């Protein structure tokens, strides 16, 4: 079973961001063998307070921890945010700011964004793509930007873009194969400590109970 987490940072109910996320998820599902994929949705609006708590105090609520676990153990990610002030929304960024570091290592990601007009579409290239690259994810080349007008008219332009992005993402995902959940943060430090301790001469039990 392939698991693709869907992270959406839409604020309203209903939300066009969520709508885009759902359409991308459905297109990806169609491109994979029937019944072979799970697409758990992480709707960040539900974690607003928990994300702020984690940011301010480092305290991660069990619900947020469970969202982290879902994401870290997924094979791929569909990440969708509204464009705010020429960037992703603060809520979207908060989630990835407090997500433990290696969670996205080597994870194929399909990025998408929504906004009032098409003029903000490069937010995908200027904000989302660099952030996911920094987090060592593998971002699919084709991203989707949906302006308000894309949800009107005949929608004939948005649907093929969704399909094309989904097809590219599935190709990437398939090429990457199954993914192992990265070791939790601290692994490097633990390895470093072990390596360093290996270099210390044996001094016996220093607290004296067995020494001498």
């Amino acid at each position, binding site marked *: 079973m392939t698991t693709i987490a869907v992270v959406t940072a839409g604020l309203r109910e209903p939300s066009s961001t969520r709508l885009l996320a759902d359409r991308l998820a459905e297109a990806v599902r169609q491109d994979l063998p029937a019944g072979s994929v799970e697409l758990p949705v992480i709707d960040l609006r539900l974690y607003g307070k928990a994300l702020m*708590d984690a940011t301010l105090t480092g*305290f991660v609520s069990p619900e947020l921890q469970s969202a982290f676990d879902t994401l870290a153990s997924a094979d791929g990610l569909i990440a969708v945010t509204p464009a705010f002030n020429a960037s992703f929304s603060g809520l979207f960024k908060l989630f990835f700011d407090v997500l433990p570091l290696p969670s996205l290592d080597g994870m194929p990601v399909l990025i998408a964004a929504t906004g009032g007009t098409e003029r903000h579409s490069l937010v995908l290239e200027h904000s989302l793509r660099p952030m996911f690259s920094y987090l060592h994810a593998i971002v699919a080349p084709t991203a989707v930007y949906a302006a308000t007008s894309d949800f009107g008219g005949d929608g004939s332009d948005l649907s093929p873009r969704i399909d094309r992005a989904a097809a590219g993402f599935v190709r990437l995902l398939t090429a990457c194969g199954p993914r192992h959940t990265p070791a939790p943060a601290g692994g490097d430090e633990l390895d470093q400590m072990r390596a360093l301790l290996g270099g210390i001469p044996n001094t016996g039990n220093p607290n004296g109970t*067995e020494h001498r």
Partner: protein
Amino acid sequence: MSGMQFGIFTVGDVTRDPTTLTTPSEHERIKATVAIAKKADEVGLDVFATGEHHNPPFVPSSPTTLLAYIAAQTEHLLLSTSTTLITTNDPVKIAEDFSVLQHLCDGRTDVMLGRGNTGPVYPWFGKDIRAAIPLTVENYQLLRTVWDDEVVSWSGKFRAALQGFTLAPRPLDDVPPFVWHASIRSPEIAELAGYFGDGFFANHIFWPPSHTQQQVELYRQRFADYGHGAPEQAIVGLGGQIFMRRNSQDAVREFRPYFNEAPVYGHGPSLEEFTRETPLTVGSPQEVIERTLGFREYVGDYQRQLFLIDHAGLPLKTVLEQLDLLGEEVVPVLREEFAKGRPANVPDAPTHASLLAAKEAADTAPKAEPQSAPTTSKDDQA
């Protein structure tokens, strides 16, 4: 003193009391800390530990000065730290400070090592935070060496070399203070403590019990892997956080404003969430007893329990009342209950007397064969 030790640890924060909007001066805070420690001694607690910080709003930048002053005015209290910064302090100076303290207080001291939590402390003391782990290892190794070896010739990466150096004064009875390694979230500290067979202290304040359980399990396992004994023989300490009133609802009502404004977790999770998800207990003495007794279910029988009771702007009078409750109602029950069913092979909390006795026994006993070494043993790597 046998079995477990109970005590308090302070961060030493100067925080405005959110109910009176008054902030103690640094002078008042330091004097209050002394009053708190003396009270802890009076009511029969075993341990007082102070943090080490080098920036406002904290006052304890010189722990052994504070601890020596307290030692002079107390009878039984064991003086410790929470924590002594092994990365940014000169380990030779740590050895000297604790050596003098140990002589002054007749062995009523040990030391808890940690890395601190404020990035700029590294550059302020001429260190590089990126080297935190190598600094920890090298500094601790040197600290051990100047304690354990009479004449030290040593060279390392982070400090001037020593040729023919002898620590003065030598540790009391040639038994250095017991060392704990403290960790909030770093598994490598459990590794370090396990490697040396030292104590491991889990902060146990900011994180859910499952997190503490993992850390302590790792430590116990590594303690055993490195040949210091069975996992249950490892020396474990826990932090904890409590606020008590006879009536549970009074405790919640009174503590809430302090919780809400607390420097570390204030303006974040609610008191109810934090109480549910972390070991924080706000309630009656009985509730504190029950919660605390539950700790051993996930860390095993352990040696030291320290509570944080004097932070977030709580007034001195309130803190002293907490100590009355601890000493009269909580700790006596905890001692009795923790002693029940405690396996015989679980060591008592280490003290100077116990370390001295162990040393004398080891000195007179014929040299034992070294234990069969596990593959990761120091013996293989020496």
